[in-house]
């Protein structure tokens, strides 16, 4: 076993909170590192890394490289890319994984150019080829119409971004041991070319599609904005979050924070219930990896039925309220 080679996860933090996708990447990283015989490590740029290390150990990081600097408190592409690229050039990891968040999707392609590495976007599956050390990176392209497996045979590190909710979280314990490795980067030479003036959080907290075990989603078949009430009622009975297709978001029936799909959120609940959604490839791209998919649609030929585990053919205006009543009755 080669204990000097490392697999890294970029530990994205916002306002001192580690992003959920980092826990997912570390969880998948545990499996890959074991297969490869690599050490799983996290890279944490922030203004105070020590306070966040324990959480990273608990999800499998054996080592956390903390890069502390007041300039790294909030994400800024120039500072972050310099810090991460310098660490990569010095420590030469084999693999670096990033969440495909708005931060990861700017940072990773910048770093890729800086360190001469290949970068595979939005992977939905990762595997390790023990024969040659290649990371097998599988991702959808052409809006989900095809899948491609990408390799980077001649460049190290091999880098990939992965969306939230693609991998499951596996916490080992609350008291895992790990090693903090502080790393100093001199950012004084990096010219300040951009400044954040304002950060506004406007999402409605009741949604939380990312964490939801159940999601009930409405599409154009819901008919009009008022009818979303039956979707909300079923969701609240099930303790579910509410999702939506882009057609309903574009029509202004519901805010874009609810949108699921290629240009919305990727979700992976235990049960996804699609009501009056046709199943366009761009919608499927965001929910296809849900454990169980239920589709309610009056058109038996709707493509949503191709990915459904259970399909109910009929009028959602009858089925959805009936579903809610039976769940409520079962609880009573």
């Amino acid at each position: 076993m080669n204990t000097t080679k490392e697999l890294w996860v970029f530990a994205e933090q916002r306002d001192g909170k580690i992003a959920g996708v980092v826990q997912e990447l570390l969880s998948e990283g545990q499996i890959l590192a074991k297969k490869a015989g690599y050490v799983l490590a996290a890279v944490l740029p922030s203004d105070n890394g020590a306070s966040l290390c324990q959480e990273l150990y608990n999800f499998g990081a054996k080592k956390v490289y903390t890069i502390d600097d007041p300039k790294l408190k909030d994400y800024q592409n120039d500072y972050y890319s310099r810090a991460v690229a310098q660490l990569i050039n010095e420590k030469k990891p084999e693999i670096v994984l990033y969440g495909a968040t708005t931060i990861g999707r700017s940072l990773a392609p910048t770093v890729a150019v800086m360190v001469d590495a290949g970068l595979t976007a939005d992977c939905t599956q990762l595997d390790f080829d023990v024969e040659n050390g290649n990371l097998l990176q599988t991702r959808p392209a052409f809006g989900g119409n095809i899948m491609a497996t990408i390799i980077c045979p001649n460049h190290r590190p091999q880098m990939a971004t992965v969306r939230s909710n693609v991998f499951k979280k596996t916490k080992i314990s609350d008291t895992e041991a790990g090693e903090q490795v502080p790393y100093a980067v001199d950012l004084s030479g990096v010219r300040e070319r951009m400044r954040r003036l304002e950060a506004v959080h406007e999402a409605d907290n009741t949604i939380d599609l990312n964490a939801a075990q159940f999601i009930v989603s409405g599409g154009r078949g819901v008919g009009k904005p008022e009818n979303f009430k039956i979707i909300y009622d079923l969701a609240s009975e099930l303790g579910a979050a509410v999702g939506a297709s882009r057609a309903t978001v574009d029509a202004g029936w519901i805010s874009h924070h609810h949108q699921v799909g290629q240009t919305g959120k990727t979700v992976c609940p235990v049960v996804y219930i699609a009501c009056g959604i046709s199943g366009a490839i761009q919608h499927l791209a965001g929910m296809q990896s849900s454990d169980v998919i239920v589709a309610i649609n009056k058109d038996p030929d709707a493509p949503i039925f191709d990915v459904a585990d259970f399909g109910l053919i009929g009028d959602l205006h009858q089925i959805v309220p009936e579903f809610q009543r039976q769940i409520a009755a079962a609880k009573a």
Partner: protein
Amino acid sequence: MNIVVCIKQVPDSDKVTIDRETNRLNRAGVPSIINPFDENALEMALQLKDKHGGKVTVVSMGPPQAEEALRTALSHGADEAILVSDRKFGGADTWATSYTLNLAIRKLGEIDLVLFGKQAIDGDTAQVGPGVAHFLDIPTLTYARAVEVTGDTLKVTKVTEDGYEVWDVDKPCALTVVKEANQLRMPSLKKKMAAKKAEIPVWGFDELQPDENKIGLAGSPTKVNKVFAPPVKLNKEILSGEPADMVADLIKKLKERNVL
């Protein structure tokens, strides 16, 4: 303002399918379009030009037929177009694409702003914008929804997961633009006619003088190992009949699966 907009010609990806037996893409007869998000980048450039004057140059790297996308952009109001095309550039991944586009943009001389779509709907990586920006050594902001000129700098609103941020960024800079930003204006008849006749220079290996190890398939760190059709669900169950019976049946089956 001197603005460059990078546009990619893409197949209308809704209509691209994969042959489940041969794992080849069925692209025959699929129309080519300007990448939808690049239309928003173009409109952002045109609005800035309307307000502040200047020039909008569209650049596309691709096979000779990508010229068609450039002519479409001219008909919507772009002033000039450059086609970056050479057999040697073929098979480029985002790294090599970023490098090559960077050379073309440098050749254009002084610029204030480079705009990209949020992502291309075929490759779907969203990596080219930040890549080009780093090669050009200019700052980059992704997911821009609005931009305002404030003296020497730009005030940019960018979308985040749960809201938005406002940034002040030095010129020149690069932005990738989201759909919410705007809608591309209609082409005018006059511009359409002019676009048909416009001279579109083609810049290839000789014009750009690239480092041979950084272009095309050979200069690309990532390799597509295989492509295949997305998996389909087996064992699916279709229920029909009276709503009450269907729902009862569904609840029973969800319980059997231990998910309810």
